[in-house]
């Protein structure tokens, strides 16, 4: 056991990807265990590893952490990516929760029935451009700083960066009305830890494909 955090999830983005992003952004190396079969998953449950019988699971600092938000909050707190006080934390939490709602739509998208896909894609585009991106564009414009909160790199910046790239994969020109976000994206891309994560060979996972969807359905089948 190396002392590095160990992530257990499928070999794909899903609900674990934000954790990979945050650890990578913090410069923390981690190990991964990939669930490929139902039997592996059932064994984890049987062995009592999963508090609520669900993954993601992150073994960190002697804890078997589950629940993505709890995991992300812990990492953010531990690596000083959570603001300097309660009010900054409140802002980071609000921003992160908003982005999580947008990311949820993207997460669920590959699992939508074929006849709902176009509508769901339109929803993602609509929400990104009319509800979420305008908020962050305005925040950056109003304070003129490089980072969303407290003039310091935080969990909120990592989450926003992940969301921008994820939406761009589906709607390539989505940032066309958001000059501040374009600059933000470039700045984030050039931060050493993020730059490294965006290169081939990093723990970053590719967009979900049919094989991933199939594996999810197989592993989590009732």
């Amino acid at each position: 056991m190396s002392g590095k955090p160990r992530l257990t999830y499928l070999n794909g983005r899903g609900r674990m990807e934000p954790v990979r992003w945050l650890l990578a952004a913090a410069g923390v190396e981690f190990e991964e265990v990939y669930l490929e079969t139902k039997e592996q998953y059932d064994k984890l449950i049987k062995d009592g590893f999963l508090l609520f019988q669900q993954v993601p699971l992150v073994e960190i600092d002697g804890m078997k952490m589950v629940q993505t938000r709890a995991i992300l909050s812990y990492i953010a707190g531990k690596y000083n990516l959570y603001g300097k006080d309660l009010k900054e934390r409140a802002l980071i939490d609000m921003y992160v929760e908003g982005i999580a709602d947008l990311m949820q739509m993207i997460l669920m998208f590959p699992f939508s029935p074929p006849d709902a896909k176009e509508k769901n894609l339109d929803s993602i585009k609509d929400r990104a451009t009319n509800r979420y991106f305008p908020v962050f564009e305005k925040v950056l414009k109003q304070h003129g700083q490089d980072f969303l909160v407290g003039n310091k790199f935080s969990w909120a910046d990592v989450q926003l960066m992940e969301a921008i790239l994820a939406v761009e994969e589906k709607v390539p020109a989505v940032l066309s009305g958001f000059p501040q976000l374009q600059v933000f994206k470039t700045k984030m891309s050039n931060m050493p830890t993020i730059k490294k994560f965006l290169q081939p060979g990093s723990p970053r996972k590719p967009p979900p494909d049919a094989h991933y969807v199939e594996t999810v359905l197989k592993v989590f089948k009732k």
Partner: protein
Amino acid sequence: LFSIVAFQFEEEFIETKEDLEKLRNDGVLLFQQVPMVEIDGMRMVQTRAILSYIAAKYNLYGKDLKERAWIDMYVEGTTDLMGMIMYLPFQPADTKEKNLALIIERATTRYFPVYEKALKDHGQDYLVGNKLSWADVHLLEAILMVEECKPDVLSAFPLLQAFKGRISNIPTIKKFLQPGSQRKPPTDEKFVAVVRKIFNI
């Protein structure tokens, strides 16, 4: 969560679509959504963000990062359970029975056993750090909500029964559980209709 610290709060109720539109047009809802809580000069949105802030401000979030991690994990579990109950009245009538059965199954096989075991393992009165926290308040709320679906749901969970009794007797909570408090009644058809109308769903 406000009630437990004997914190007084005001409420403004959205009753019509126009009420919501006005809030949106006035730019007071960061992501065009409620809940919204005005507190300490902030217009906070996103329930989890709001709850985290209140918990931290009023010392209901553990004494260090690890206790906070446990509180967060427990709260996320009860959130998932209460989320199922929250959506139940909005589901198609022909799926209600199946969904209700799933709620009871999840409560009794996935969630309640975790909290029962936590209390059993350390033998203390509260879930985390031998001190009242957000996790305890959230669990009590979840227990009461599930009991509204199935009154005897705690029959196999003696420690949760004791927990429920203890937490309910905390003076501020006891007061909140009495008629005339700001606690809201279970969702009825009238409320469902209002929600559907206001949010166009």
